[in-house]
């Protein structure tokens, strides 16, 4: 999709959200609603301006060869890690997450794959648990 088309979609989404936001803010008490209302009115104007500008502007054509599959997995892995670390414990989830991500990114050096996640987790343990005494979730270790 080219940037002009992306801009049109962005402007439509922004337009709809701003209308919704405006009507929510309309019900707020006088002082509290004024600033949000101004924000949404400006946002509505901007979304129209962006829509119109997508027909008028020069767009430099940039080709980026994005590997969506790779990114998609990183995001999914990170979300699973975020959900799991409170349950299984930070110091178990972290090395597994790091190992799996590096493995999935096809990192080849086996000793780094194994030792880096462990060493980095140990480092985090020393910094956050020992030095800063942050109560990180310990899960089954706790």
């Amino acid at each position: 999709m080219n940037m002009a088309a992306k801009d049109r979609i962005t402007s439509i989404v922004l337009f709809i959200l701003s209308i919704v936001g405006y009507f929510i803010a309309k019900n707020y008490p006088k002082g509290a609603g004024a600033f949000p209302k101004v924000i949404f009115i400006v946002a509505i104007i901007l979304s129209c301006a962006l829509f119109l500008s997508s027909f008028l502007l020069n767009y430099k054509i940039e080709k980026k060869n994005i590997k969506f599959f790779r990114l998609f997995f990183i995001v999914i892995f990170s979300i699973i890690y975020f959900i799991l670390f409170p349950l299984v414990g930070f110091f178990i989830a972290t090395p597994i997450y790091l190992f799996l991500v590096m493995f999935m990114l096809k990192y080849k050096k086996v000793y780094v794959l194994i030792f880096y996640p462990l060493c980095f987790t140990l480092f985090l343990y020393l910094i956050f648990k020992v030095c800063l005494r942050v109560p990180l979730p310990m899960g089954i270790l706790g």
Partner: protein
Amino acid sequence: MVHILNAIPEIFSIYGILLITLSVAGGIAIGAMPGLSATMGVALFIPITFAMTPAHGLMALGGIYIGAIYGGSISAILLRIPGTPASIATILDGFPMTQNGEADKALKISITSSFFGGIISVLALLLIAPPLAKIALAFGPAEYFWVTLFGLSIIVALSSNNLIKGFISAIIGLFIGVIGMDPLIGFSRFDFGNINLLSGISPIILLIGLYSIPQALEMLESGEINEGSSVAKLQKRASFKEIWEEFCQFWPTYLRSGIIGTIIGIIPGAGANIASYVGYNEAKRWSKHPEKFGTGISEGITGSEAANNGVTGGSLIPLLTLGIPGNGVTAVLIGGLLIQGLRPGPMLFSENADIVYTFMVSILFGNFIMLFLGYYGASIFANVVKIPKAIVAPTVIVLSIVGTYAINNSLFDVGIMLTMGLIGYLMRNLNIDSAPAVLALILGPMAESNVRRALLISGGSIGILFTGLINWIFLIATVASLVFGFSAFIKGRIK
């Protein structure tokens, strides 16, 4: 003066020296690593400094800031990749010098220039900030409203090649800023029934998300990620005498770029990358051999590097005196000050003078540490580019998750941080610069509470916003920056 003397024992304690050395070294390594910026470094380290005393925390963050801005030049010179956007113009002459076999000289010129620029800017900070804070104490809510609006307008005008998208970015930041309790009457807005959103979202959490996750994802989105870059061995060593002779010959460039950087730092919205370009161009304009620029001339490195480190002290002036962040790093620092329980603004100098002076003097001292580390160790720091992105990116993600969690022990915060990170990545792909959003996030609530306070004082008459010289100065400056931004946009982009 008393405050400066009070700061000395804190800084020159063993803990203080160690802390500053480690943070400057960490900053240089972060800066030298392409993909990690100074802003991200400071954002990721805020949770770690959270447990320190405010003075120590700020010392560490200041060290990371100056180190990272300098560190970007190492990969710019050796690899032709700017480690941070601040070193963008350093490439122009830095890499040709490496190709000519003068890498060592280029690195040493870069550190001496960064040091010199840094020192000029810290001296400016120490001289300008205290009297300016006194003036700022006289600012009422109306003046503050215009100052914040001016800051917003200039960042929108400067930061984006599409003015409309700059505004959209600012609007996104303004919206996020209104989430939670209203500043005057305590009415909860846009909390979507979620109790965690009642008190609003702490800016630092949003900033960690916005500055670390998109970068980590961008590192992985294309290209080679499993091999680091290789660094060529330094061939010809440059002697101290050679560097000293360069300095004696080109000292006006050092001085000029340092001052340019400091001034650009003071202006909200303009960051170290702009300073780097302006410093380089001015060095070229004033040079006796402008035709040699771009072929590997040390003056070019000085022009860029003295200017970008000049920004460091300069950008702290509006931060410490007005509580107004001028760039990404200072926006993050505001978040850091807030979680330490300090309120940025002119009161900082009267209420927490010891902390502020310790911070400023520690940056002065940090520049000397940086000089030492950079002069003797630049080639060691260069090795960070050998670390493949497949390791760096997941490490950044883990650090941002654990760091965010550490601030409030809240998983909800981590979720917000990740969401913000994904929004930030989406914005990048839509070519919407996130800088206006970041500043709007901090400035928006300030603007709102000040304008409403002003209207309360005046009994609802908006005349209060247009009385007095200071109000008019900032009003005109706001309009002027928008007109400038708009005309540049129309000229540059319309078919």
